[in-house]
C-alpha cells in the first residue's frame, strides 16, 4: 500500500504541509518496502483546480491514502471518487505522520475540512 503525505520538503524529515492542493511536495511512501519518492506539486502554481489536480496525481501514482491538514471541497470530492482515504494531521514531520498513521492515531476525514481557496497565498 502506498500512502501520500503533503510536505514542505522532499525528505522524510521535512515538515508536513497542512495544505492539500497547494502543498509544496507530495511524499509517497510504500509501506511494504519502506521506500519513498518525493514529487514537487505542480498544483502550487495552478490558477485553479489545484485540489482536483492533486487528487488526479495521487490516483495516477496509486496512492491509497493521503495524510494532510486541510482538504477543500473539490479535492474532497475527487479523493473520494478516486477511493483515496484522507487522514488528518496538521503539523509534525513526514516521518512522524507515518508513525502516527501506523499506530492508528490519525482520524480519517470524509468531506472537505475547509472552504475553497483556503490554501492560497499562505505559507
Amino acid at each position: 500500500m502506498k500512502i501520500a503525505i503533503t510536505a514542505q520538503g522532499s525528505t522524510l524529515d521535512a515538515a508536513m504541509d497542512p495544505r492539500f492542493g497547494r502543498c509544496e511536495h507530495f511524499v509517497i511512501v510504500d509501506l511494504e518496502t519502506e521506500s519513498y519518492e518525493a514529487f514537487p506539486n505542480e498544483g502550487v502554481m495552478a490558477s485553479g483546480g489545484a485540489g482536483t489536480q492533486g487528487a488526479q496525481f495521487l490516483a495516477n501514482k496509486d496512492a491509497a491514502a493521503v495524510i494532510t491538514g486541510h482538504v477543500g471541497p473539490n479535492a474532497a470530492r475527487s479523493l473520494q471518487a478516486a477511493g483515496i482515504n484522507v487522514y488528518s494531521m496538521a503539523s509534525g514531520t513526514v516521518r512522524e505522520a507515518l508513525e502516527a498513521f501506523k499506530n492508528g492515531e490519525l482520524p480519517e476525514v470524509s468531506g472537505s475540512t475547509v472552504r475553497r481557496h483556503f490554501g492560497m497565498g499562505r505559507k
Partner: protein
Amino acid sequence: MILAIASGKGGTGKTTLAVNLALLLAETMPVAFLDCDVEEPNAHLFLKPTIETCEQVALPEPIVDKARCNGCGKCAEICAFNAILAFGDQVLTFPELCHGCGGCALLCPEEAITEEPRGIGVLETGWADRIRFIHGRVDIGMPLATPVVKAVRKRAKDTDGLVIVDAPPGTSCPVVASVKDSDYCLLVTEPTPFGLNDLELAVGMARELKVPFGVVINRAGLGDDKVADYCAREGIPILLEVPFDRRYAACYARGGQLVREFPKLQDGLRKLWLRIRMEVGGNGAGAACHQR
C-alpha cells in the same frame, strides 16, 4: 474609436469618469457605453438606461456518456484547468473550473464527451437617452467573469462613433479582455501609495497589450506627488486631474451625474477628450511614444 477606462486600484473613479465623459460627449456625437465590470456592474445606477434586450451568456460544458467512456484519461490529461478527472472508469467533471475550451470533447477517442451550453451570466442592452448602453452580469457564485466580459466587449464592433469601455479594477483576465484592442486607455488613479502601486501594474498591462494610454488623477490634492513624479519619470502624460471635493463624493453616492450638477467639470472633460484625440489621431506616432 474604442476608449477603455481602467485602473489598477479599485474605487479610483473609473465609472464616474466613464459615465460623465459619456454624458458630455453624447451631446455632440454617437456614444456607446460598455460596462465590462460584470462582477459588479454599476454604471446603470448613474446612466439609468432603459433595458430593451436581455440574453444569456453560455459556456459549453462537457457531458460524459459513461456507457461509451473507456477510462483512458485523455480528457484529464489535456485539461489545463483540472476541470475533468479520470479515475479508472470514473470520470468527474467540475463545471465551475471548466473554461469551455472543448479540448476534452475533441480528444476523446470514444467520442464519449458532448458539450452542452451552461448559462454563466446575462448581457443586457438598452438606451440611456442618446447613449447606447450595454452591460453584462455574471451569475452570483460563478467564478468565470471573462467570457461574460468578452461577450459585452464584442459589441463594440457593432457600434458607430465613440465606444467607452468601463473596465473592472485590477489587471487580471477580465481587465485584459476589456482593454485589449482598444484605441486608447485611460488609467484612473489617485495620488496615494496604493494608487501608485496599482497604477504601475496597470501601466505594465497596457504596455504589454500595446494600447496607448494616459493617466487621470482623481482626488488630486489628497495624497502626495509620487504619482506625478512616476508619470514624469516614465514619460506618461497626465491628461486630467480632478480635485478632491466631498460634494463630488456625495453626488456619486446619490447616483447623481457630476457633469450636470457641477457644470464647471465639463471644461476639464472636454480638454481631456481633445488630448485623447490628439494622442490617438494626429500624427499617430504621438500615441505610441510612451510605449516602450
